[in-house]
């Protein structure tokens, strides 16, 4: 199982994602620089890590989404490559048009960092198959712009087709319908504001993130 983590300038959860992936696959992920134009061959799962790519000085994720490597990942995802983005990675995926909706500034305009209870909406996806449906898990959040928004039609569509995989039990940022994590219609591209890679070790205060990674790895 070969995984890869993309490094953008000022990604800062790249190492955290790598540690989690290695822990679960037993194999170091490839660290891929944003200026590369192609993923190394054999990569089966790509993580877009959290951080502040390009300082988030423009709209979060907007500049990173135009990186050469993102174009290649987008093309491959259309052919089925599994991709997950956490936090800034989720923002990059929406900016790249790989996931619907946008992440706006948090409702109270402040950065928020805390362990957050999430409801697993469905376990009929490649990213949640190891969870009990409707169970509650704890992942930390740490973001300034996690307020999920989509127009009414898009929202209806993703709700109807079961693309909402995680909802906040106690909405920290004003996201519509308490949405914390979504998957694309094809089921192979996933994004969430919370950090599953920060919940894979008892020292983190919880290990609910393990099932997330185990789910996706099992399907590959």
């Amino acid at each position, binding site marked *: 199982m070969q995984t890869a983590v993309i490094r953008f300038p*000022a990604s800062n959860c790249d190492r955290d994602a790598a540690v*989690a992936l290695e822990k679960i696959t037993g194999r170091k992920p490839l660290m891929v620089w944003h200026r590369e134009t192609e993923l190394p061959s054999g990569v089966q799962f790509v993580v877009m890590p959290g951080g502040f790519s390009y300082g988030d000085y423009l709209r979060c994720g907007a500049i990173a989404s135009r990186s050469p490597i993102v174009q290649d990942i987008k093309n491959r995802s259309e052919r089925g490559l599994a991709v997950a983005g956490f936090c800034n990675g989720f923002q990059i995926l929406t900016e790249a048009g790989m996931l619907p909706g946008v992440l706006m500034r948090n409702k109270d305009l402040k*950065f928020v960092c805390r362990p957050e209870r999430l409801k697993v909406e469905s376990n009929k996806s490649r990213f949640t198959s190891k969870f009990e449906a409707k169970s509650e898990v704890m992942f930390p959040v*740490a973001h300034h712009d996690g307020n999920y928004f989509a127009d009414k039609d898009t929202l209806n569509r993703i709700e109807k087709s079961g693309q909402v995989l995680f909802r906040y039990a106690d909405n920290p940022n004003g996201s519509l319908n308490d949405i914390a994590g979504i998957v694309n219609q094809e089921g192979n591209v996933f994004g969430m504001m919370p950090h599953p890679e920060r919940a894979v070790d008892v020292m983190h205060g919880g290990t609910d993130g393990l099932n997330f990674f185990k789910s996706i790895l099992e399907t590959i």
Partner: protein
Amino acid sequence: MANNTPKITPEIVAEHGLSEREYEIILDRLGREPNINELGIFSVMWSEHCSYKSSRRHLAKFLTKGDRVIQGPGENAGVIDIDDGDAIIFKMESHNHPSYIEPYQGAATGVGGIMRDVFTMGARPIALMNALRFGEPTHWKTKQLVSGVVAGIGGYGNCVGVPTVGGETNFHKGYNGNILVNAMCVGLARADNVFYSAAKGVGNPIFYVGSKTGRDGIHGATMASAEFDDDSDEKRPTVQVGDPFTEKLLIEACLELMETDAIIAIQDMGAAGLTSSSIEMADKGGVGIELNLDDVPQREPNMTAYEMMLSESQERMLMVIQPGKENLAFEIFEKWELDVAQIGKTTDTGRLVLKHNRKKVCDIPIAPLADDAPNYDRPHVKPEPRPALDAKNIHETQDYNDALLRIMTSPNIASKRWIWEQYDRHVMTDTVDSSQSGGDAAIIRIHGSNKAVAVTTDCTPRYVEADPYEGGKQCVAETWRNLTCVGADPIAITDCLNFGNPERPEIMGQFVGAIEGMNEACRAFDYPVVSGNVSLYNETNGQAIPPTPAVGGVGLIPDLHKFATLQGAQEGDTLVLIGETTGWLGASIYLSEILSREDGAPPPVDLSAEKLNGDYVRKLIRNRRANAVHDLSDGGLAVAACEMAFASGKGMALSGPQGAARHGWFFGEDQARYLLAVEKNSVNPVVATAKAKGIPAQIVGKVGGDRIQGDGAFDVSLEKLRSANEAWLPNLMSGDAQNGDG
């Protein structure tokens, strides 16, 4: 030499913050009049901020050596050995003046600056802490300062991706006109790959890397060396602007270059920018430096030599590169899209020579700028000692429920969640414990290992104000105690000495007294000072801040299977109090919050009792005899029990006074004390062994239920106390109520 500069008049000299006497020395050392560039360079290098001219001789008293000290004060940060070839590099620094004028940028650049001090030496920053002091909550400026400072700290640290794991926040009217923002950074390096600032060799290339130089922050160091008045807001243009994105790239690029052998010496450009970095490197290495300012990356056109040398633009580094490795350095910095330029070379002249527009614009000897800078023995007077108060003569509250609630919702005790939830505490995924649990010290695992460092910052300004010597001892002792509470071996400290105007003998008296007290504690614990900074002139219109020597302590937890926090108390555990309780209420929170009094001598610190009690508690933790541990500090036993109850989610029932008046028993602030939650079967051995060692140990209550009870004196629901404790700061920050318009 080009003389494109105005004639140096006494007015210009005074504007540069130099005294007549100091100017005479400059004339003497140069043997001629300086030009304006040279005057500017002398003025920043001889400012209090850069030269430590009022404090140097007193700082020299500190214990700075120890078995684990790799590098003490004098470099960018202190370095300690934590075994297995690992080193911890850390320092705390103030950014008080800029944060008052422009809270967001002032605080942000404080965080950026302290991180640069740490990664300059080859360490990856792994934790940030902050010690903050604001004015009264009701003061018209306080809310704006709190929200700006907190957003600035978070905005910078969160972006760079270093967890902000703890700190402290106080409110007191003494800070109405001068807030304190002290930032601490802890980094991890390999002990055999530490980088220093001493330039070496002759003809070696000097590289500039990072942000371009702009006109921001000119004379920041001079501003930080003067008092404020009503027009302080006009100093806003001297505050720098932070760019955490560039900082993150600088960290990665520098650490990457540090994996090669390309760097001979490296120094960040902090206060007084290019001037102090080049002079410090040259002075430490005993060489000269020649810079061509035309090659400095510039943000704006037509900058003068004076502006470039005095700019405090952030996120810039200076390094001496190994000849032949220039291309390697260019390659790495260009990969990270950073501005990089070779701007000069080392020389054997011992002089700083600057060229601009193909003309020589400065040529001065380096020694008088650094080592030979003024070193004053300012007059100091000992403060009048305050009388020790006897609890018997201090009014006892008739409503303990109300008193407990008022204390738990008082500004210094109330939860600071509103602040720390704005900081990423988890990035790097090695945070074991942080502000989140309300613990005594943050715990950060050493990546990929089973050991951890513990970090805390502490200072009780009201004690220092009441008695600088005892208060100074207490600041150091409290950090030592807090590290002990989590099961760490305390190793060393950094300090940030915030005081008023040193030209006033009573302020200098506070300064000298505090240092002597701190030093005594350092020596008693074998707990050296390895880095720090001094911030003087924290005064507005002649009103000085309370003396605030903030101390940052670092310790080592060798085995992460054996540590403690406040969180582990179990239903049915026995509460054991280690240390002697006399019921000391002088300078206490009870006195200030319940009786609106700030008098009395502070609790004395018996350093041998501290050591004895602390070593015992640490041993109990390592033998897994304690489920939860908390030191007793502000608010005494009752507050410690509440905090442990909040963290553990269990009620606590305290028994009545043993050897002290009732209010002194519950709220007294005697030092060297710890509250332990101990499993039933361990109680007898814990108490008996303590007694055998001559350590006071008493059973003082039980864990369980959902109430906080104090032997019939108070009985309040845990939930009520917790929600009131949590609500205070959010209410303050969201409330519209402001008293007056200033």
